[in-house]
């Protein structure tokens, strides 16, 4: 069995804009690999290179051992691709879309029904409805069915959960976990940092460069600075006060708390306490926490910018 995805030193520029710079990683068999980064980071460009739609300026990439440039025809037979935008025919019904995509991949819906059954039954009640009239979550499920219908060896999902509500997002990730068990290697991209935790390994990408590649657990463990969660009644005032404090390293809002790191680490806590006492914050709480993926991403972004 060949390694599903190997990317080596890939570069791609559009005019003066460096869309991808020195990208290398591999995706192993049965692995759910996440490409995590904001819009414009270069995720879609990388997907298009891997699905043979774009040529890299430099570097090599293989999908199941096939070269993305030379063997593009062979790759097109074994890859399942779900582009970033909803790319099905809006005026065709659910059923018609599925049959159409099955046929152009030289197969039938029935032949691989076991693979898509679990997902398809959820949208089957709407099979006579035009795809354009489905809700966001339903559309994504249909698109996934269409990408899976030819039983691809490698699945490329470009931002499948963008613009989808949290419930549908969660369902979608559950489906991916089950697909992974069937041995399909999956490369998935997302701008939602919290989804990184659901991947086996992730690559953090920003401005066309990989910031880190590792398991989400390792990435978090690498975050060396002690971190505190802080809150008070008036959060905006607290944020301003904390940022004004000379010993503060970083201070960002995270849900109901602020995440805080100090330049002197644990040694800086006393000085901070003394500083905050002068500010008289109501209902002030502060406790130590473990950093999350998003903290790591921001930390990496900051170090890259320096």
């Amino acid at each position: 069995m060949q390694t599903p995805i190997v990317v080596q030193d890939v570069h791609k520029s559009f005019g003066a804009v460096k869309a991808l710079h020195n990208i290398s990683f591999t995706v192993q068999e049965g692995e759910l690999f996440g490409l995590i980064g904001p819009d414009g980071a270069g995720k879609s460009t990388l997907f298009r290179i891997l699905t043979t739609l774009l040529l890299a300026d430099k570097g090599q990439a293989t999908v199941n051992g096939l070269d993305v440039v030379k063997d593009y025809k062979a790759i097109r037979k074994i890859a399942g691709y779900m582009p970033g935008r909803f790319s099905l025919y809006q005026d065709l019904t659910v059923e018609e879309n599925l049959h159409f995509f099955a046929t152009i991949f030289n197969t039938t819906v029935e032949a691989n029904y076991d693979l898509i059954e679990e997902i398809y039954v959820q949208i089957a009640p709407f099979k006579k409805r035009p795809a354009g009239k489905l809700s966001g979550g339903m559309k994504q499920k249909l698109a996934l069915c269409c990408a899976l219908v030819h039983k691809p060896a490698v699945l490329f999902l470009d931002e499948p959960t963008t613009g989808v509500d949290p419930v549908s997002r969660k369902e979608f990730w559950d489906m991916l976990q089950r697909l992974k068990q069937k041995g399909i290697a999956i490369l998935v991209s997302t701008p939602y940092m919290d989804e990184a935790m659901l991947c086996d390994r992730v690559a953090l990408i920003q401005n066309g460069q990989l910031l880190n590649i590792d398991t989400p657990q390792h990435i978090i463990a690498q975050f060396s600075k002690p971190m505190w969660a802080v809150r008070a009644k008036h959060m905006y005032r607290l944020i301003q006060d904390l940022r004004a404090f000379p010993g503060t390293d970083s201070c960002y809002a995270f849900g109901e708390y602020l995440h805080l790191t100090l330049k002197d680490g644990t040694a800086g806590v006393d000085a901070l306490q003394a500083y905050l006492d002068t500010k008289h914050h109501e209902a002030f709480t502060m406790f130590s926490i473990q950093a999350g993926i998003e903290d790591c991403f921001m930390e990496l972004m900051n170090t890259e910018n320096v």
Partner: protein
Amino acid sequence: MDPIITNGLTKRFGSFIATNAITFEVKKGEIFGFLGANGAGKTTAMRMLCGLLRPSSGTAKVAGYDVYTQSEKIKQNIGYMSQKFSLYEDLKVKENIRFYGGIYGLSDKAIKEKTTQLLKKLQMEAEADQLVSALPLGWKQKLSFSIAILHDPSIVFLDEPTGGVDPLTRRQFWDLIYEAASRGVTVFVTTHYMDEAEYCDRVSIMVDGRIRALDTPRRLREQFSAASMDDVFLQLAREKAKS
């Protein structure tokens, strides 16, 4: 008087009820999170409040004006920003500011002053003469928000303003929101990021056209005995699936 007051606000499209008798009020200077799954009726409700869509029944007042009869007045007193349409990509940063300032009837002098202020606040002085299309997404969104409140509206409506933006810029964006709210601007915001729901003073969650929960994030978490807003949201969705 509260800047937004609705009572039984309803919108029907044929037999489909997009927004079903929603009743709530938003207080001055409050950051009000308006959450719901796709198709729950958020956009319809927001359009009615902005005076873009006539309600089928119920009442609503925005900035003290009636949504049925005074939609023109409402439009003058609110700011609006959506993820989809915000700025003209083929105009320069400065030209966009001047254009929106002009639409809201600001004087040339006021526009000039505000342009300088705004560019300074966003640290975009160097980019003033760049085409908007050349800016990174996060910058566009920050610029777009600043332009939405250029004419000092009492209320600003934000429709998924931070979608796809990197985490650092997302927080800078919220800093702008906080800053506006601290000046007394009422902020009405929809988002798909549940952690952002926590930044709001109060949050409402819509399910199938109705408001199913409305309170501060903390009390909502207590009410649903949930660890996070994400959980609250999922619980409501599951409830819907069962019914």
